[in-house]
């Protein structure tokens, strides 16, 4: 018997059962499951509605109906494919650029000692405190002057430039925890910074990099305001903006038939969620553990 059991046993036998609803694990499980189920309602609605045709959409909105109308997905994909490819391209290129800068920065701040290290580090970390709101308007003007607006670079450059702020913070913390002995012995063997980064630091920190990847992809995939303002050509538009336009077109142009267009719209929502689901399938474990175990704080 562990301490907890002994105490509970004693309390019980002294005739003071101080049992609250928390002591019954079943109650806690039930509460958690109920809350999780409620938070899944939007996801459930999205999935069921995406498989309905017009009649089903109007008359049987909540239950799962058969046959599943997979054609909705074809219709949605036709509308969204450019946006999805654009966003994937921007997310991958942006992430690679941002990762290179973050790894270099994290490595230099974690493993090298040089005058001015802390001031330089804090001058980067400080940028996390500047909310988007103060830079948003001038940022648009800057990108406009440089000819970056209305191209995919508007999204990519923003990610490469501002992603490392958090990236360096996260990676420095992790890199500092790596044992110095490994670096020392590699240096003995004549390894330079390049070798130290690619052969030692990177392989040892894949879980942290996975966390960073999920966070970064989520933010590119979700970004809405910036592409809406910076990109006007539908050829380069990002998926979030495309989805919003899709929803708006369906509800404004076809005022009478709004409800009839439901299925493909929701299929589009599902398609737009899939890349994140796939990414999460592979990296989700690292992401959750990375967040819980790093004990993130200010």
């Amino acid at each position, binding site marked *: 018997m562990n*301490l907890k059991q002994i*105490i509970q046993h004693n309390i019980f036998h002294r005739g003071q059962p*101080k049992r609250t609803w*928390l*002591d019954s*694990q079943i109650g*806690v*499980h039930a509460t*958690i499951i109920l*809350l*999780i189920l*409620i*938070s*899944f309602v*939007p996801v459930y609605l999205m999935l069921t509605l995406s498989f309905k045709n017009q009649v089903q959409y109007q008359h049987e*909105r909540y239950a799962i109906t058969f046959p599943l109308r997979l054609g909705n997905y074809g219709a949605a994909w036709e509308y969204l494919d450019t946006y999805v490819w654009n966003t994937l391209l921007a997310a991958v290129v942006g992430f690679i650029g941002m990762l290179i800068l973050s790894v*270099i920065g994290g490595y*230099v701040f974690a493993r*090298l000692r040089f*005058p001015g290290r802390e001031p*330089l580090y804090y001058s*980067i970390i400080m*940028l996390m405190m*500047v*909310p*988007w*709101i*103060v*830079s*948003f*308007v*001038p*940022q*648009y*003007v800057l990108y406009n002057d440089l000819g970056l607006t209305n191209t995919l670079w508007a999204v990519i*450059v923003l990610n490469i430039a*501002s992603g490392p*702020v958090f990236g360096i913070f996260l990676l420095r913390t992790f890199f500092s*925890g790596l044992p*110095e002995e490994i670096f020392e012995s590699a240096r003995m063997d004549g390894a330079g910074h390049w070798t130290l980064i690619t052969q030692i630091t990177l392989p040892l920190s894949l879980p942290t990099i996975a966390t960073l990847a999920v966070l970064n992809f989520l933010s590119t995939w979700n970004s809405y*305001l910036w592409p809406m303002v910076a990109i006007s050509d539908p050829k380069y538009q990002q*998926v*979030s903006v495309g*989805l*919003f336009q899709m929803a708006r077109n369906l509800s404004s142009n076809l005022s009478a038939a709004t*409800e009839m267009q*439901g299925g493909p719209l929701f299929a589009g929502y599902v398609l*737009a*969620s899939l890349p*994140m689901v796939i990414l*999460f399938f592979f990296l*989700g474990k690292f992401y*959750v553990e990375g*967040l*819980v*175990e790093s*004990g*993130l*704080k*200010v």
Partner: protein
Amino acid sequence: MAGQVNLTSLNEQVRLKKEITPRKYSIWAQVLRSWQAYALLAPIFIIMIVFVYYPPLLGLVRAFFNWAPNKEPVFVGFANFVSYFQYAESGREIANMTKLMSFNLISGVVVPFVMAELIFSIRSSASKEVYRLAMVIPILVPGVVFLLLWKHIYDANIGPINGLLEAIGLGLLKRDWLGDPATALYAVMGVGFPWISGISTLIVLGGLAQMPESVFDACLLDGCTGPRRWVMVDLPLSLSQVRLLIILAVINGITSIQNILILTRGGPGYATSVPALRMFLRAFTTNEYGVGSAIGVTLFVVAMGMTLLINRFVRPYNE
């Protein structure tokens, strides 16, 4: 635990190194010797200076100018700030922002804390892991899709809320939740109910996981259990994480407009309008970039001030 061990050994190493190799280089010699470090950092800083430092600084300066992308800036002093505060609806927008921000403290701090405690009190580690993963799944739906789904849930004609009310015989309560000035702001707050998903709960769980086991035994001996322990023991011990959530909730309350832009665009009338949305609209629909910058700078100062206040008054025991 592992972190602490590493830290002490690192300190030890540093101390030893200092003893073995007394300082003999001047600061300039050290700078020269570390040229590689600066060379590696140079590209990062060049990119950041252009794309990350420059825009907010420009915003700060341009808040005092009348300007637009292809227009020569003209210095106007505080006119942009005055222009916003003289605007008839600014009081209402600030009130809306305050309400949203206060509500964020419940949906972004209290609820995640309680949820984290519930999961933390689960004894089976397998179920714990399943719950942690299940909580993250809804955030895989892109933000815009999530908001559009909630817009659908609130819909007057085909939304499930009105459908449910009708089904249980409360058809009288049916309304256009986002289109009715009386309910629109509350409908915006209600988005995401029950607010457990996302990283906030995970962050608190991270704090709770770092509490030493002995604390729980001590609590048990003293008969401090359940919600009482959450508030009296767990809250102070995970205050670093909770404070992060408080700061995020406040900053979000001040600066987030994506939800409002997609759900209501500030309407109906000005029922859900907030200063940040006004900043966006002033700059990008009426081309008043100066007023936009001025609102942005004001909100930045407010957000920064609140962050400093929170940091000053919410102090973890180990700080």
